[in-house]
């Protein structure tokens, strides 16, 4: 009779999820000849498969991710907090209070309340093409909205394309900027010069000729359009 002690240990490793590929191959080879070890291993695998089946969701994980993303787009996104943020917030609050007090004392206080956030100027940019889920946030606002084909675009807008999505903005008659998936693009200025900031991801500008000053800033530097078509990627 085969001494199965070694293989019983390997079966325990399978149960613990700590077995290596080589050990597993060795165990599998052994179970072709040892019915006792085969039954034990199969019994465990069978138990695992019925539990996995019984507790599986009918909802696809990808669909669940999209649904959570949808909920998040309707609410404020979390602010990244760095160590000491609480003290910085308090300090900022004190500074704000002092500033407001000084403002009132000097007669500078505006009649507008602090909660009055207005949209920045609308710009003649149109959504030309849109695939998947793309979010947009207006400057000064905390909430993200879905970008739609008929969305109006404003200065300072931040666009966020999720995985598998993309969109094209029409800048004028013949110029477009195409944004790939998993990208974040901010429209910084749109007057004598058009300027975007690509925080991450990839975009391709296709400009009419001749075109005015056109820049795409990135965390690593600024790209100026000299030709009519170029792609910028930020990892």
């Amino acid at each position, binding site marked *: 009779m085969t001494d199965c002690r070694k293989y019983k240990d390997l079966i325990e490793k399978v149960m613990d999820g*700590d077995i290596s590929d080589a050990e597993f191959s060795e165990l599998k080879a052994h179970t072709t000849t040892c019915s006792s070890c085969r039954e034990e291993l199969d019994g465990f695998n069978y138990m695992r498969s019925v539990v996995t089946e*019984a507790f599986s969701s009918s909802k696809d994980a990808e669909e669940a991710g999209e649904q*959570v993303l949808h909920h*998040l787009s309707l609410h404020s996104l*979390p602010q990244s*907090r760095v160590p000491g943020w609480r003290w910085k917030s308090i300090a900022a609050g004190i500074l704000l209070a002092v500033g407001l007090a000084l403002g009132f004392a000097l007669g500078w206080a505006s009649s507008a309340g602090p909660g009055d956030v207005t949209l920045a100027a609308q710009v003649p940019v149109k959504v030309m093409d849109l695939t998947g889920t793309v979010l947009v946030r207006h400057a000064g606002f905390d909430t993200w909205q879905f970008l739609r084909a008929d969305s109006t675009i404003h200065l300072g807008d931040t666009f966020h394309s*999720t995985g598998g999505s993309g969109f094209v903005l029409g800048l004028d008659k013949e110029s477009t900027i195409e944004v790939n998936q998993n990208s974040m693009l901010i429209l910084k200025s749109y007057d004598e010069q058009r300027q975007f900031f690509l925080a991450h991801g990839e975009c391709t500008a296709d400009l009419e000729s001749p075109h005015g000053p056109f820049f795409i800033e990135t965390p690593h530097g600024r790209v100026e359009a000299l030709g009519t078509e170029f792609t910028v990627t930020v990892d």
Partner: protein
Amino acid sequence: MPDDITRNRGADEHLIHASLAGNPSAFSTLVERHWNLVFALALSRISNATEAEDIAQESFLKAYTQLSTLRKPSCFAGWLTRITLRECTNTVRRSTRRKAVCGGPMEPQEVLNAVPACAANPGLTSGQADFVRQTVRRLPKNLRELVLLRFMGGFSAVKIAEQLGKRPGTVRVSLHRAYKLLRKDLNPLLEEIGS
């Protein structure tokens, strides 16, 4: 294959940092990676699969809003497990209170379990899947969570220990205890399917 589920857990940390930097799609990827585990944890406490899905979704939303408070991003799954179980407890408590206020009789466990679960179980009949769920629910709480982290989360005993801040040896012993109990209770079903 040593394990059915193999994942690069280190990627969780990267996705957490990206989420905190304002990239919501990074968080949706985290949801995809942990959805099965979170749903299973909820279903191990709540009999109704639709309600379990709601709890799972709510748990992810809570996790998102509290993400900046997570001290060890490498232990995201353990942290998420605690959030989910707390969410389950709150749901059960709210449900119990609502029934008490309405004056209606408490719904017996059998009635709750009779609600058809819409979990996907291609190989098992609805009755068999229900039997498996009830068997897992009968396990002591701490063993139940370990089994689901192992089977649904794909974590090894060592990784579970890391996630929950326990000793690997303790997790191993508990897992083997859970397997023993499960095998004993599931035996009629395993024989029925096997025959």
